[in-house]
């Protein structure tokens, strides 16, 4: 996909996201932030892509693969940890007549 299109997608996603997230009440802002931690871990897609390229190269550069692996580990901590903690937190939000 051309670079310009990618930049446009970035901006459009940001604008659409902004309006959707604007509806999230302050009550849920902490879970929202940990949810965003999870989504920032989606950089694992980039990590997977660049690591895959390194793995397929002839003449393996160990340092480069290590960088890729560390990137995957960190991003996965965010994805799994972020969604996990958000789920745990949201479970605590109860209404008065919910009990």
């Amino acid at each position, binding site marked *: 996909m051309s670079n310009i299109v*990618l930049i446009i997608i970035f901006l459009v996603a940001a604008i659409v996201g902004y309006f959707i997230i604007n509806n999230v009440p302050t009550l849920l802002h902490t879970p929202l932030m940990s949810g965003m931690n999870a989504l920032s871990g989606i950089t694992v897609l980039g990590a997977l892509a660049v690591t895959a390229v390194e793995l397929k190269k002839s003449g393996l550069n160990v340092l480069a693969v290590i*960088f890729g692996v560390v990137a995957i580990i960190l991003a996965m901590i965010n994805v799994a940890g972020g969604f996990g903690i958000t789920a745990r937190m*949201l479970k605590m939000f109860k209404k008065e007549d919910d009990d």
Partner: protein
Amino acid sequence: METVLSPLVFYIISGVLVAGVLIGLSLMSKPNTARTGNAISAASAIIAIAVTMYNYKVLTAPVIWAAIAVGVVISLIIAAKVKMIQMPQLVALLNGFGGLSSALVAILSIRQAEDSFSKYTAAVALVIGFITFTGSLIAAGKLHKLLPQKPIVFKGHTALVAVTIILTVVAVIINAPVWATALLAACFGVLFSVRVGGADMPITISLLNSLSGVAGGIAGIAVGDVMLVAIGGIVGASGLLLTQIMCKAMNRSLVSILIGSTAKPVIKQEETPAEETEETTEEPAEAPEEAEEEEPLNPEEILKNAEKVIIIPGYGMALAQAQSKVKMLADKLEEKGADVKFAIHPVAGRMPGHMNVLLCEVDVPYDKLYEMEVINPEFKDCDAVIVVGANDVINPAANTAEGTPIYGMPVLDAADAKNVIICNFDENPGYAGVPNPLYTMKNTLLLLGDAKETVSQLIDLI
């Protein structure tokens, strides 16, 4: 590198998954649908990971699986062990992980870049990633009390920041070696974060939350991954939105936080930049004042006769771990027929929504938690306000004391209530360093000391 899926198929899948994330987020607008929303976002992310692995033909690569496994195991340990009171530092830490991960992706894509556009974009992602990483580590260290809460200002701090910014920009433009660019960005992250004080943290971690997304999104542009680009943009927008909300709630401009103009101690009578009252450890402020407070106000009478009670929690409640006591107090008051509400200031605590999570954890129903704009008109009909570890957010000086840092900051109108009971650690001004006239008002009762104990005292009275 050749991918398995044709670009068109990949874009369609990406579009569907991004839509899934957006649907998940829109379900976050209500507490009762939020869990489903989180699950949908999580499912979209997992499918995205699987599709990417398939697309790059690494579904069977042991190295990749090992890395994923390590990450998931670490995250499970963190998710199970973290206490709600530690959420601010955890969010800060994860912001940092996201930033570093994107920075590492950027380093590899600089290596693999075939055109100069990718190279420059990756360099930008590298810079933002490293700023996020070191900035977040400092923020997390402060929130976890490993570093001093007070702003740390180096000699010639502002000049240093300026030089670092210029050098970083130059490094990107001239295609400097990766390590040099990374080092400069890392320095900038430290310089900017170290100067932020405790109560400005909600703004800082919101901003770092945003940057962690932006770093990912730009890394996505460098790698050419649509999904990463879109989701990075969404995360960036979310963090920016929260940053705006926090800035508005504190009447600060983002620029003033970034250039550190809020870091200065502001009120002349203050020698040291005062922290939120409760944080200043064992200070012998109590003994002398105790005697003169023993005046007409009788907390027992106030509480027994109160029909409408509003409780205002602040960071002090979190520090004293007094939230279950506060819940007990609310229950007791309700048992005797009082109407109890909680008033939550947007910047109470150390991150957006901090107080809500702490109170929900101790089973306070969320429909009793009211936002500032909603509850402010109710204070004048309220028989008793109970403040637990909050100061600046109830300081009426914000409406009147021109020239002070909190002037113009929207506050909870606790002063309008018939009686105010304040359970704070000491009488020192809050983080902003502005003395609170509420403390000396006739209808105010000050209970100084550990909030857990003072709230217990109140419970015993009813």
